[in-house]
């Protein structure tokens, strides 16, 4: 039943595309969202290329190439001149690069549309690919990895370490920005070759939304037709090695608090009925940056241990900066993630146990009927905030085209009506578990934490102020909750040695 429904959803998407909404049957594909009352026009030019296309040893090539197009000179203008032209418009364009998608996006007021489109097309079709720009982007990327990611944001580092561990030895297994060593090996010729191969008319979809004239679509198509026609080969979907038991990477660095990320691959995507069932369960367990999150209630609200605790059923980029997810980071292989924001080093073991125990409780006991009803009520309205602007709605339409599904957010609203508690709890039991996971922790004194983890030694919590008896009672259970982590599954990595491979 479940699979049949999934197929129905995908078939509906196929029909919609065939009648032209996706427009991919006629040369360059288009995803359109006309909004005549919008005084601005949004662009999302999607190239089907991402860090999964980085050749081994040249990790970071896709991201560097995108930077050479979106933040660099064209054959007609130096980058300083481009900035000067865009400046009075208060407009710009930029590229986001994820594993499978590269999207050049920007938004401009209609007053400036003509010149803006000139600049956007020139950036894509006529990049200058100069040595000067290349050196700038290459150095910036290396500095980002060497300095910023390693030393300036423990949460981002923890997440990146988790992602790399989850997809080790696959095309998803490195940061999109690249690796310090491989970035140094990339040459300008590599960029030129990558550009020729992947920035083609056969590999692009034009996303456009807002108050534009239909003639603009033709102009964009004509402009992009100057790119080579071919489409490059599609990289196979990654097959991540499933964790066996709990695998821990401890990154040791001088820090007053410990950032924790937990995850494992799951085989559910948007459009699948189970995705929406898991969405409900996950919203209850760990709604992003929301006090309705159960993890937040347990770890922050009742115990005051940190700033927030959330969970996810698909990749959520830049979570520390965004209240709602960004579109255009679609992936064929997704994962489940728990994000524990930094806790005091002494409380890290306890926080880890608390989070995993709550997940296991959800799996064992399912959602309670009252939580299920409340979460459905929440989501039916909350999802309306996901795409408030033309640009965001356009982004989601591109995502729908990637997954080959009809309107994801509308489907979600429908599913929130339709799904039963049994559907949700069955999906939780089918897709979530705590026995086989990967964990990344950025912490101080990693050897002591390793010893505590592998010996499953008690991790009692102490507070500066008394807690209610139900909390202290539960603390005693959490403090000895067994994680059963074998010593050989724990790796300690000095922070200086991260990303060295």
């Amino acid at each position: 039943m479940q699979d049949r429904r999934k197929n129905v959803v995908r078939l509906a998407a196929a029909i919609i595309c065939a009648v032209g909404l996706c427009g991919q049957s006629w040369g360059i594909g288009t995803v359109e969202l006309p909004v005549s009352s919008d005084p601005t026009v949004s662009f999302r030019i999607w190239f089907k290329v991402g860090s999964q296309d980085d050749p081994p040893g040249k990790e970071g090539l896709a991201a560097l190439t995108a930077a050479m197009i979106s933040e660099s000179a064209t054959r007609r203008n130096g980058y300083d001149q481009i900035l000067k032209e865009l400046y009075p418009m208060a407009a710009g364009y930029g590229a986001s690069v994820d594993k499978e998608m590269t999207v050049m996006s920007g938004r401009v007021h209609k007053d400036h549309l003509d010149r803006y489109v000139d600049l956007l097309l020139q950036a894509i079709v006529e990049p200058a690919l100069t040595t000067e720009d290349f050196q700038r982007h290459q150095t910036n990327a290396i500095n980002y990895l060497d300095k910023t990611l390693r030393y300036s944001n423990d949460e981002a580092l923890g997440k990146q370490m988790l992602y790399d561990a989850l997809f080790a030895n696959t095309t998803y297994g490195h940061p999109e920005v690249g690796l310090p060593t491989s970035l140094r090996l990339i040459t300008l010729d590599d960029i030129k070759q990558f550009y020729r191969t992947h920035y083609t008319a056969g590999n692009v979809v034009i996303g456009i939304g807002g108050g534009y004239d239909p003639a603009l679509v033709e102009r964009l198509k004509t402009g992009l037709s100057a790119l080579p026609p071919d489409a490059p080969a599609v990289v196979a979907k990654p097959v991540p090695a499933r964790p066996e038991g709990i695998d821990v990477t401890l990154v040791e660095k001088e820090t007053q608090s410990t950032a924790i990320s937990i995850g494992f691959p799951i085989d559910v995507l948007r459009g699948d009925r189970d995705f929406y069932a898991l969405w409900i369960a996950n919203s209850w367990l760990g709604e992003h940056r929301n006090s309705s999150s159960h993890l937040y209630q347990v770890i922050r609200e009742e115990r005051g241990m940190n700033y927030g605790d959330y969970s996810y059923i698909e990749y959520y980029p830049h979570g520390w900066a965004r209240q709602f997810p960004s579109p255009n980071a679609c992936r064929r292989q997704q994962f489940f993630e728990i994000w524990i924001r930094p806790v005091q080093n002494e409380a890290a073991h306890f926080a880890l146990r608390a989070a995993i125990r709550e997940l296991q409780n959800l799996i064992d006991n399912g959602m309670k009927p009252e939580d299920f009803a409340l979460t459905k009520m929440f989501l039916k309205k909350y999802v309306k905030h996901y795409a408030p602007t033309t640009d965001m709605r356009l982004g989601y339409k591109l995502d729908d085209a990637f997954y080959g599904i009809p309107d994801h957010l509308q489907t979600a609203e429908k599913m929130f009506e339709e799904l039963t508690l049994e559907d949700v709890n069955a999906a939780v039991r089918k897709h979530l578990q705590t026995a086989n996971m990967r964990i990344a922790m950025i912490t101080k004194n990693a050897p002591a934490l390793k010893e505590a983890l592998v010996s499953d030694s008690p991790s009692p919590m102490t507070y500066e102020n008394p807690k209610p008896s139900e909390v202290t009672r539960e603390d005693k259970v959490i403090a000895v909750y067994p994680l059963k982590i074998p010593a050989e599954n724990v790796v300690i990595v000095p922070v200086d040695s991260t990303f060295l491979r």
Partner: protein
Amino acid sequence: MNKRWVACAVIMLCLGIAAATNAGAEKIFPYAYQQTVLENGLKVIVIPMESPGIVAYYSIVRTGSRDEYEPDHSGFAHFFEHMMFRGTKKYPGRVYDQLMTEMGANANAFTSSDVTCYHLEFVADDLGKVMELESDRFQNLSYAESDFKTEAGAVRGEYMKGLSSPRFIMHETLMNTAYDKHTYKHTTIGFGRDVEAMPTMYEYSKSFFQRYYRPENVVLVIVGDIKPDSTLAMVKKYYGGWQKGYVPPQVPVEPEQTAERRADAAFKGRTLPLLAVAYKAVAFNPDDRSMAACMLLGDLAFGETSDIYERLVLSEQRVQYLGPDFEPSRDPGLATIYAMVKDPADVDAVEEEIYRTIAFYQNNRVDSAQLSDVKSHTRYGFLMGLDTPDGVAGSLVYLLAIGGDMGVVDQLYATIDQVTASDIMYAAKTLLTPEKRTVVLVKGQ
């Protein structure tokens, strides 16, 4: 004045709403609004706009870390922001959370030096319930000491999170060095020692609420799919009984700075050197052309279209990041140029480049095209953000917090429009002087 653009914006962004109190093609703010002051002093701004059944609801408390004038109480405005989610006797925190969850509201808050802002987005049908809840917590907040102490732990976690960033170290050092008396000396999250001591300040927290969370000190902004008259009637019903009682903070006046200050700070990790060159600026005043000129000067001289950016970032690539923050504050704040330098040995030379740039603007008039471009950028940048109820309300927060009135929006942009090349040169000459300067350098290991 770029009247063509303003007129265009009014036509295009107004989306069919009849002009009311702010009608007129010379105004930048494109939506009709009603601004009302209740008898108790609460200022209410109601802005209907076309939106798919969505409303943004912003409670702007004109209190931030600036108001923490009592010794050892830095960071309290931000901490108190957390406490506002702990509920009332009628709607305890858990119940408040549950009702917000039922409404699918996007509810959050933030604090800065000049403002604490509570903001929600929700579907229009829930306006009455939201208003009941928000008016209740602003008038009847009540929390146990144990909850207070628990929340202090969350704030401590937030502080620790910040410590892992060299930018945080930079900001903390800069403010501490640039100010002697004024409360801008501490950052919004507060001094570390004060954050540690927060659990002991339960009684003080109640006094903080009594003094600052009063109607005369709050601006309520409601934007979106609403009817102004019935919305205002509802505001009167729910907020009309809120008692006056605001006690202005005794914020010390910062003595005039008479000599350059310098400080170095160490970051426990690797980072490219971070350099900040900051000058004492003037307080926000929407009528003040020198203030408006200073705002434009930052972008002209150090923005991404400036000559120094082209040279240091794009051509010579000696600097990874260069950018200004010349936004005004309620009291005289800082006009700061930030640079992230690639080679530690090059820091002094980059600093000299910054001074050479300032000298250029002190001795040369910007050309009319540059001035026109920066004005256009400022206007389009403001207007492009007004496309959702949340965007409209969010774009008004700081102006209302430091200016107190919707009139400052149009006034500020009118003043910006009047700025001349001479004003820019005057601002550079009078504000960016060595004796008003504070220089901070953060180095890694």
